Structures are given as C-alpha cells and as structure tokens.
C-alpha cells in the first residue's frame, strides 16, 4: 500500500487508538504525555506521533480545523489500521452554568456540519461510542477531575457561532441552549457518525475555553493549559480501559 495521500502514513505507523487534536501544536503536547513517542509523519496540518502508554501502542494525529479535514484524517487512519479515536479539543460553552475552563465529555453531537451530510442522511445520529465515553468518565472520576457529559453542537462556521462572531450568534445558539446542548465545536459531528458507520469507536473530550452567554469571561492561559493537560490524561486512561475491555471475555458483542 502506498502512503495515504494526506496523512502520509503506512499500515503499522499508528496504534489502534489515535488521539485527534485539531491544533498541530497540541499533537506534540499530547505525545509528551506518552511514555515514549516519535514523530512519524508531517504533511500539511497532519502531524503524527506514535509511541506507547502503559505498554499500549498509541498515536496522535492533528487534523486541522473542521469536518472536511477530520473526515480525511479518519478515513486514512482507518486504512492504516486505526480503530479507536478520541478527539481532544476546545470549544465554546453554551450553558452559562459551566465553569470556564471546564471539560466536556461528548455523549452525542448536533449535526450542524456539512461533511457528515455528504456521507449520511441527517436523520442518522452522531453518537459517541458508549464505552469510549464511559471510560473517560471513569478516568475523570479516578483522577478527581470534574467533567460534564453532554451533547456537543458540531458546526462549520466559527465566525457565525462563537463569541468572536459579528452576527447575532446567540440567536443561532438559542435552540441548542434551550435543548441543553453544552458546547460548540467543529469536528465531533463529523467524527462520531463516520466512526460508527465504519465499525470503529470514537469519543471526544473538549475544554470549554469561553462561554457564549458570558463573552466577557476570560480564563487564564495557564488554567486552560492545565485543563487540557487533564483532558489528555483522561483520554490516555480511557485508551487503557478500552484496551483492557477488548482483551477480556465479555458478553457484549460490539459492531
């Protein structure tokens, strides 16, 4: 097999589990949490490190921003052997009771992105893999880190639905705020249905770095970095739990 067009990887270059930050610089931060890691490929916004964590082969690939770029990464990563994905990213809180920063573990996503529509009719649900999501809740509990499980609003246009928008973004947010959606982000609503349809697992943990209903509220860079560091540790612990679960005899038959 030739190297994949965009991620520039061959089978064997990644572990079964790949962490997916959007930000290329965050990939190195995540790799820094592995027990050991080396740079495998770097092309466009896609940089990949592979290493080990508690004896398990793990990888991180940056995807760049948005559904189109995430879908390319996920499709190509599946071709080179990835089967589980945990997105580690940031987003804007929709609910005003959420502390800033805080960590959100995605249970499902609103499909406001265009990429997943090209793949699947809109009625198909963007749901996180149950065990991946639950493993992150377990990890957070063990580490005594507060996380908020809930729905992510996936969408495409950052400058239509963020505190930096010129338009009345709260008007666009209103149905999602009323329905209890926790956070906006650009990738999970593409990632969840794509992984599910391909028989893979996907989950997301996001750091809420600002709040749509409290645009003046600013968190320090240090507080955000600490929160993202917690998110990375939670994702790594979840990877270990998933690995252990899949290598035990359980009655559950996962498709």
């Amino acid at each position: 097999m030739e190297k994949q067009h965009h991620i520039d990887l061959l089978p064997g270059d990644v572990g079964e589990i790949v962490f997916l930050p959007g930000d290329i610089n965050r990939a190195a931060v995540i790799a820094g949490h592995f027990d050991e890691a080396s740079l495998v490929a770097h092309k466009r916004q896609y940089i990949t490190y592979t290493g080990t964590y508690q004896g398990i082969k793990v990888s991180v690939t940056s995807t760049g921003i948005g559904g189109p770029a995430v879908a390319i990464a996920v499709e190509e990563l599946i071709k080179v052997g990835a089967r589980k994905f945990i997105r580690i990213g940031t987003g804007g809180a929709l609910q005003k009771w959420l502390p800033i920063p805080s960590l959100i573990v995605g249970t499902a996503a609103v499909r406001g992105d265009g990429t997943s529509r090209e793949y699947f009719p809109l009625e198909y649900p963007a749901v996180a893999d149950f065990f991946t999501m639950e493993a992150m809740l377990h990890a957070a509990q063990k580490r005594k880190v507060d996380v908020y499980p809930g729905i992510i609003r996936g969408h495409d246009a950052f400058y239509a639905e963020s505190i930096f928008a010129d338009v009345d973004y709260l008007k666009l947010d209103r149905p999602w705020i009323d329905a209890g959606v926790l956070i906006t982000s650009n990738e999970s609503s593409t990632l969840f249905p794509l992984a599910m349809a391909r028989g893979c697992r996907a989950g997301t943990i996001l750091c809420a770095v600002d709040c749509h209903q409290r645009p003046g509220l600013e968190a320090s860079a240090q507080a955000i970095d600490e929160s993202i560091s917690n998110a990375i540790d939670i994702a790594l612990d979840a990877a270990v739990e998933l690995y252990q679960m899949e290598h035990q005899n359980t009655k559950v038959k996962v498709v």
Partner: protein
Amino acid sequence: MTSQDVHSEIQHHVDMKKGDIAPTVLIPGEPQRVEVFAALMEEATKVAEKREYVTYTGKKDGVAVSCTSTGLGCPPTAIGVEELIRIGAKNIIRIGTCGVIQPFIKPGEFIIATGAVRGEHTSEEFINMEYPAMADYRIVRALIDACEKLDMPYHLGIVRTHDAYYLESPEAQGNFMERLQPWIDMSVLALDNESSSIFVISSMQGIRAGAILTCGNPIYMPDADNCDWETNIVKMVTAGIEAAKLLAERGLAE
C-alpha cells in the same frame, strides 16, 4: 393557566396525575405487555387505562416502578412521554420489539440502543434534524448491567426508527431490501417505530431515556418469525425492572 397547573392536573391521554407513577417508567408500545410487567412485580395496581395508554405502578424488591403502554408509532409515544414527564417521570425505558437487519443478530438476543436514526417526523416538530436521538448513558449502563446479571446476550448500537411499517418490513410493497441496504451498511442494528422520538423529547427536557429491544431473526430471512417471542419478551421486561432497581440504587430515581 400556568405551567404549574399543566403539570399537576390529570393528563389528557395517559389519564394520570402527579403521584400516580414511579420515577422510572417502562414503556412498551403494546398495552398487553403491561400485564406481563404486572405479573413480574410483587405488587402492582392498575392506575389508569384510556385509549392505548394502560398504566400499572408497583414494587419490586422495595423499589417502585411503573409501566405505561404508549401505542404504536411516534405520535402516541410522544404524547405518552410528554405527559409522563409532566407528572414526574425521570427515567423512561422503552421495552419493545424490533425488526433486526444485521445478519449476525440471533433470536433470543437483545439490543440496547445507544441512539436512533430519526426516520420519523414527530421529533422534528420539536427540534430540527441535526439534533441527535441519543439514549442516556446512565440508562444504557443500567440495561447492560441488568443483562449481564440476568445472563441475557445483548448488542449495543443504533436502531432506525421510522413511521411506515409497510415500507420497511417483510410484507412491504416493492423492494424493501433496496430501502434497507443503506442502513445495514451504516451499522444500524434494527428497525423500530418509537425510540428516536422518546430519546429526543427526553434529552431535550433533561430526562433520562433508553431502550431495550427483543430480537428475532433478520427480517429478510425466510424464518424471520421463528422465535420464542413470548419467553424473550418476559426476559426483556425482567431486565427493564432490574434496570429500574439499579437506577434507584445509584440515586438516579429522582
């Protein structure tokens, strides 16, 4: 009328008021399945019966559980769910049957839904189609633990909820496999007529919902109906009651 009044009065269709149901309500489509529930409880009293809505409330091992039939399809199910929430339901668990569409699923196995394809129109009247029809993870976990305890084989995944039974069933007009193939390819496990509207309405209101479904053979197999439905439905209702007990133990019944 204030919204407080709306919630305290006798509801139009389920014919009940606050206090008539337990925090956890099992909802089959079929009214007769409520009798199966009643027979499995230590004590159960019929609380109401109107149209397709039959309700029993009772106790199992000291935990109060209710069961309300909501009829076939999303329109009556949405009414039932909405009214049950108004009178105090906190956990809503669908106990139903389904049309299996994946070849690896066998009769006597069960599906615990994690989400549903919104192939119906009822939920769209509440919120646009981008919103996910997702089961609550705490209900999913309670149903998994109940199945493990009762030694019931289960599959976890998404189901396709839709409206027109006679377009996606073995007796369907024309080539129903052509209509089903895309969903089979998207890893959908089975078809039903209710789950997605239950999930959407509940999660929008912060109420926990989930579904456990009894499986037969895949609907495109010649022996699709060759399944001991009666025995398996009793097992499913037992698992629903067990899940209600686990939710109460976990402080999730309020």
